[in-house]
């Protein structure tokens, strides 16, 4: 097997692919992965003849209006409330994604508190219940590697939406939203613990699941799963992350 197809995934290639999908001045797409070959099986030769195939995997991109259901109205009200409080909507909400019937607002980190406050307090939005913050690590999403995802519920209007804040790995700081949603206390601690996102202004951003002196953040993609080979009936089963796998 020639090793040329495998050598395609250099840093320059990845950036090139990311730039290619964000061409045209639109909001950048969230690149999840750039893959080569047909089956994505690492470590063994791709004998399919499609070894040079490069696939860029991106999350669903921004949606154009109309968003459908109650989404348009809610986004309009949020824009109005934000403008009233002196925050330009386009600065605060970088893009709106509607996928699989769920509304996601991509929020700039410096405005996350204002957006949360508007969503919680305005009587036509009233997202009074938060289901917490979770994280996701996209190592190929250059400059936006770490995502914090907020899940909000409006009991009053029976609505649900998701806020997503993306930050660079090198500057993983997001203002804490504990002041708006006190329930985020432990959730932000968990996201810090697992992803290393620092929530500035959190009352006590300590590790919560891992021991206090644990090095590293285990849910990041560059953190290995770990494990040892297990012998069973004469055969040796490698740990889960070293088995042959398909993407």
């Amino acid at each position, binding site marked *: 097997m020639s090793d040329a197809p495998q050598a395609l995934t250099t840093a320059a290639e990845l950036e090139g692919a990311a730039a290619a999908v964000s061409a045209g001045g639109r909001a950048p797409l969230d690149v999840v992965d750039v893959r080569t070959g047909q089956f994505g099986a690492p470590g063994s030769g791709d004998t399919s003849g499609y070894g040079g195939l490069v696939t860029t995997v991106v999350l669903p991109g921004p949606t154009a209006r109309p968003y459908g259901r109650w989404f348009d109205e809610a986004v309009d009200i949020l824009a109005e409330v934000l403008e009233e409080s002196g925050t330009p909507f386009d600065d605060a909400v970088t893009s709106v994604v509607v996928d699989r019937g769920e509304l996601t607002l991509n929020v700039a980190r410096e405005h996350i508190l204002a957006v949360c406050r508007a969503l919680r307090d305005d009587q036509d939005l009233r997202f009074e219940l938060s289901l917490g913050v979770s994280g996701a690590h996209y190592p190929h999403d250059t400059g936006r590697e770490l995502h914090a995802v907020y899940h909000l519920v409006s009991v009053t209007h029976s609505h649900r939406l998701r806020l997503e804040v993306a930050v660079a790995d090198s500057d993983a700081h997001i203002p804490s939203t504990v002041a708006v949603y006190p329930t985020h206390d432990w959730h932000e601690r968990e996201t810090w613990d697992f992803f290393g996102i620092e929530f500035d202004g959190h009352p006590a951003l300590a590790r919560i699941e891992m021991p206090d002196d*644990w090095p590293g953040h285990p849910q990041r993609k560059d953190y290995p799963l770990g494990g040892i080979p297990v012998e069973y009936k004469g055969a040796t089963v490698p740990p889960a992350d070293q088995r042959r796998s398909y993407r």
Partner: protein
Amino acid sequence: MTSSTPGAPRSTGHIVDEDATGIPSFEAAGGDWSEIAEEAARLGEERIVVNMGPQHPSTHGVLRLMLEIDGETVTEARAGVGYLHTGIEKNMEFRTWTQGVTFCTRMDYVAPIFSETAYCLAVEKLLGITDDVPERATVIRVLMMELNRIASHLIALATGGNELGATTIMTTGFTAREEVLKIFELITGLRMNHAYIRPGGVAQDIPPGALDTIRDALVTVRHYMRQLEDLMLGNPILQGRMKGVGYLNLSGCMALGMTGPVLRCAGLPYDVRKAEPYCGYETYDFEIPVADTCDAWGRMVVRIEEIYQAMHLVEQTLDRLQASGPGPVMVADKKIAWPAQLAIGSDGMGNSLDHIREIMGTSMEALIHHFKLVTEGFRVPTGQVFQSVEAPRGELGVHLVSDGGTKPYRAHFRDPSFNNLQAVSVMCEGGLLADVVVAVASLDPVLGGVDR
């Protein structure tokens, strides 16, 4: 070095093993405790810090409570979690979508069916096959969830009573739960860690005669429930211990993101089954019990009521299963449906002989499909979803991200136990030390779900 050296640390450092140089070592005790002790010594006050857990019998597992007490009054309460963290979410990123069920069923081990269902609903939403799941599979899911709700609430009542010294409540509750576990064993083959709900449907149809067995079991559970009510509802000791204890009003609940019986005993009838119906809950007849006492007593009464509502729902599912008769319990799409047809053989549950005969003897394509689906799994289109179900402890949310591959890119479970434990401080501070046990029991945390 003498101990009077200024600035020298007073605590003992790590024990350094010469052979282990370069290998990181961890002190699992954590930093909180020594900080509290140091602060207490510095202030020189007569205050007592009680470390309760992680092995305390009344903490429902490995929950650690750090309580600062003044006489019998708790002045500060902190909860420490993480002792049962097993990295289930991380592990799920290295297994196929179907294998994920076997991991998430081990999170909240008292209510495993709910984690399974929430995860499978999320996978189905990602795949866009929510409407293709056969009706029979959905009804079986509701049946299993409501049976599990009964079992879980019985544990909450039983252990809650036991922690107050009422052993009979414990034995009665566990005996009644046993009836539900027998049904689970009959249907899934296991008492826990079922992995019964699968993306696309359920692993297997319910066995013949199961409907009658469940109807009989419900009669027994009702009988035990009446005993429990007699023991609990009029009991002056229980009332004295539980009324007004663990108080958390509606605004406190909303701020802390409390859901489930804790929120409903504060008067808000919020239930995901009504607010954001899934699995066809909008077609069933049931009520959401509420209380307005905001205390441990109210939560207990709400749980008892919910057991009756769950039994009512189980009866409706039994009627539907009876009426609809046998049918498919897995999506028709052979690219998603797990190919196996399970059956019980002499060596336990495995592939049915008919299925093995087909793939080994007559159809090479079926064999290839079986092999590819089991080893490689199916691919799920890129995107992310959030799916909630009403678990016995509150709203269980699953945040799933797919990168278009055969494994979850990220799976996060918003477990109600994890969130609800944040209320321990608010519920306990200013109260008596003995009431901490009642307040924690009224939250009914399961540490497997908290730590995942």
